[in-house]
């Protein structure tokens, strides 16, 4: 870990717990439903929602220079943790404290108004991603990002006509324009074609290096090894291990019997 432990943390999570209410829609025959209704009418007509304990007692500190990879199988709470840090979820218990600007991206194939062109959507998206920059700076970064996409004349066609790959090119190019204090990237490379992925990886890694601290969620061990200097393994809503990316990836592969990649 390359943490500078004597400085003020960029992120401090203390005893974080998140619960979600879950709806179950079991398939039952009319006869079974009738029996349920007769046996327990109150429960049948107003079923009590089950609580799912998504994140359990999470404690985490990130310092300037920390590039944290989050590893875990689907449904373990990686995205929920990131959304909580980004301020999208309110903790049911515990606290999440951040200092500085937090920028989080969870999906790269998304347009704000599909009727507008890719160029117009890029300017609009830049408003959401970079709200505090000047008009001149905005023009510069958007035009630079648009050049980087290599989408050419397609930039002036409606966004709704874009393929997923084109949408990803546009969003990723824009997202990787400016560094920030805490950057959260959740499986952002999904959807880009392999040629563009190589090109954008370099740009994203460059921005990761310039940012204060980074949280990087990926199922690809190579990307975690390349981008991160620290990693955590999340298992069943808890931080199971916190260490170097190599150690965490090895543990993850052993835990889930994943064959190591060459």
């Amino acid at each position, binding site marked *: 870990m390359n943490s500078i432990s004597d400085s003020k943390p960029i992120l401090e999570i203390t005893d974080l717990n998140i619960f979600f209410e879950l709806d179950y829609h079991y398939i039952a025959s009319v006869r079974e439903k009738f029996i349920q209704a007769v046996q327990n009418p109150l429960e049948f007509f107003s079923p009590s929602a089950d609580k799912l304990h998504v994140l359990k007692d999470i404690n985490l500190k990130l310092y300037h220079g920390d590039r944290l990879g989050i590893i875990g199988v689907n449904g373990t709470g990686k995205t929920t943790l990131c959304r909580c840090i980004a301020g999208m979820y309110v903790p049911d218990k515990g606290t999440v404290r951040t200092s500085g600007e937090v920028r989080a*991206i969870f999906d790269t194939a998304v347009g704000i108004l599909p009727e507008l062109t890719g160029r117009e959507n890029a300017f*609009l998206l830049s408003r*959401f991603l970079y709200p505090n920059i000047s008009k001149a700076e905005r023009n510069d970064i958007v035009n630079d990002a648009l050049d980087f996409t290599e989408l050419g004349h397609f930039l002036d066609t409606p966004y709704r006509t874009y393929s997923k790959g084109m949408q990803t090119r546009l969003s990723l190019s824009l997202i990787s324009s400016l560094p920030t204090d805490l950057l959260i990237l959740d499986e952002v490379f999904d959807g880009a074609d392999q040629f563009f992925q190589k090109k954008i990886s370099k740009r994203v890694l460059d921005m990761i290096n310039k940012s204060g601290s980074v949280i990087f969620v990926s199922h690809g061990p190579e990307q975690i090894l390349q981008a991160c200097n620290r990693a955590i393994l999340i298992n069943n809503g808890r931080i199971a291990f916190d260490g170097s990316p190599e150690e965490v990836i090895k543990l993850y592969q052993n835990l889930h019997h994943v064959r190591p990649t060459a």
Partner: protein
Amino acid sequence: MFRDLTTTLVLTQAQLKARYRNTVAGIVWVILNPVIMFGAQAIAFKHILKITIEDYYLYLLAGLVPWIFVIMTIQMATPILAGSGPILKAFKLNPIILIFSQVLDNLLNFMLAFSIMFIPIQMMYGPPAWTIILCILPLFLMLIGISSLCTSLSLTQVFYRDTNYVVNFITGVMFFVTPIFFTPEMVATKYAWLFNFHLPYLYIDAFRACFYHFDWNYFILALGKCFLGTIFLVLNAKWSWHRNKNELYLRL
């Protein structure tokens, strides 16, 4: 707060651009809908059903155009959150911005349509200009109140996907029991008190009071009712928001 306001205005501007792209008539649609509705209802109620209300065109215009705004806004904003799942889950964006920008978009269209339609009516009936300026007050309350109502309905739609059907049904029926083309005095006294709880009507009543036979006492009373209605709607939206904020992302 300021950042959210700026984002709302930018999104409203983009929405206005997107709304009329790929349409032949473009901005003409803004006034075409209320003009056709007004023309049809004026003929049906004044000339066919022979409703006798003094200065009927002015009365109908000052009630019908804001009614169209309120109903269109509710119908358009209710499915917004449920339909914006990918955007809301992709990055941090205050969901209220999406609702507020839709309300602002419709408000601008409403004000444009009303202004254009009001000119010939003003020439016919000539309500004094200073009372017209007062309409800013009910308009402001209407903006806050309807945005809050839309927030609550849009949140409900995320959890109960049939909300939109119910809203469309209720708004369709409500037109016939709301004093838009008839006056509250035409309704039996034992039912007239219900209008005090008809929240969209409270805004329309206060707005219409600025244009139709202005009376200070009536206007202040109508504005007071609007104010109370707005407080109720804001508190209700705030409660719904805090209760459902986390679950919202899960259900989108």
